[in-house]
């Protein structure tokens, strides 16, 4: 037993000798991961709805907390601009919209997930509920392989397909057509961090050609 313990200790010692790379060499822009349902038919979608506020994940409250104000408004506007450039029209009534965009921001770094695991944030208290998009939805359905791990300063965007009602789908699960995950180190300066986030939003759209109408 002693020998095994010594061997384990020795192994830990050598593994701890690994040299971490210098992350200050990196460009400081956000990492942007997008997943798009390649089977989605975007040609019949014309309108989209996006709430004016951003859900904050990781706040201490058990109740949903929303980020409003100028910064949030600027980020929402960036989504609107990109969607309009892609050929969609903003709808002020979600009942009439073909697509819905839900935007969330993660405040802390206590969440972790392996590659290809289901979207952990669906279980977060106060997270967007399928009922937000209409009556009858029994959950989320994501046909896209999810490939993330997360830390602080992350934004998650999900685009839901509202063209069919829950009654029209067998499992009553609201389809997600597009997911964008953006993460990076924050400076603490609002304007700079906002600029980084806006760049990431633009990058998310530019790397998803299939999203164009």
């Amino acid at each position, binding site marked *: 037993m002693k020998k095994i313990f010594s061997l384990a200790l020795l192994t830990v010692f050598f593994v701890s000798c690994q*040299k971490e*790379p210098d992350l200050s060499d990196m460009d400081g822009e956000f990492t942007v991961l*997008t*997943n*798009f349902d*390649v089977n989605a038919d975007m040609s019949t979608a014309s309108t989209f709805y996006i709430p004016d506020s951003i859900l904050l994940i990781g706040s201490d409250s058990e109740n949903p907390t929303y980020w409003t104000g100028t910064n949030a408004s600027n980020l929402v506007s960036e989504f609107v601009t990109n969607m309009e450039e892609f050929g969609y029209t903003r709808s002020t009534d979600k009942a009439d919209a073909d697509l819905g965009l839900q935007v969330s921001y993660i405040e802390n770094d206590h969440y972790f997930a392996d590659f290809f695991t289901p979207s952990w944030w669906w279980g977060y208290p106060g997270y967007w509920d399928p009922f937000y998009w209409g009556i009858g939805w029994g959950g989320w359905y994501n046909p896209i392989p999810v490939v993330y791990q997360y*830390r602080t300063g992350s934004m998650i965007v999900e685009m839901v397909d509202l063209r069919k009602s829950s009654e029209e789908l067998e499992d009553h699960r609201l389809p997600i057509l597009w997911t964008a995950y953006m993460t990076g180190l924050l400076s603490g300066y609002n304007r700079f961090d906002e600029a980084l986030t806006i760049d990431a939003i633009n990058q998310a759209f530019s790397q998803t050609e299939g999203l164009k109408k």
Partner: protein
Amino acid sequence: MKSINKRSCFTAILTIFLLVPFVSKAQVYADKIIYLNIDWQLNMPFGSDYADKISGWGANFEGGYYITSNISAGLFVAFHTNNEYVARQNLDFGEGTVLNTDQQHSIFQLPFGASFRYTFIRDGLIEPYAGVRLGASYNEVSSYLHSVKIYDREWGFYASPEIGVNIFCNEQKHLGFHVAVYYDYMTNHTALLSYDVNGFNNWGVRVGLAF
């Protein structure tokens, strides 16, 4: 008691392969039955595009026992890290998944196992040898994306031919210098993001102390 100074040792390191045939066979201790090397490593992976940048973040520890006057067997353990910055790019995983990021690629290798050496000259201060090392290797291939680290850890077999020399500073061979050049191959197969590394090749240099 004869001794040579550090300068002489350094000169000997530089000219060893030219001098080996002419080394005087002075009556120094040829009956030392164990050896120990502790080295700093300069290592460069090759054969894949992943973190194939030379680095000095590594070390080697090896000890052995002379079975015959020229043949020794022993144990070794070494470790090395190679890092390389990769500029921002789109990684397309297919099926609609795209990742845009810059990265710090990293390979950590931890081989260990048995070593065998044939030492050509034992009765001089300079002991040139050829050796082979066989064993296992634990490798971690990582990609750092700012605050996120993605990695794959795999085990594999390890084989490495090596030539080197121990240059002792006194006849008792209590202390000396060690220089070696090596090639190694590991069978580890790692897959990460859109990168697939099936088999690791390295060459490198070890410089250190001999006991």
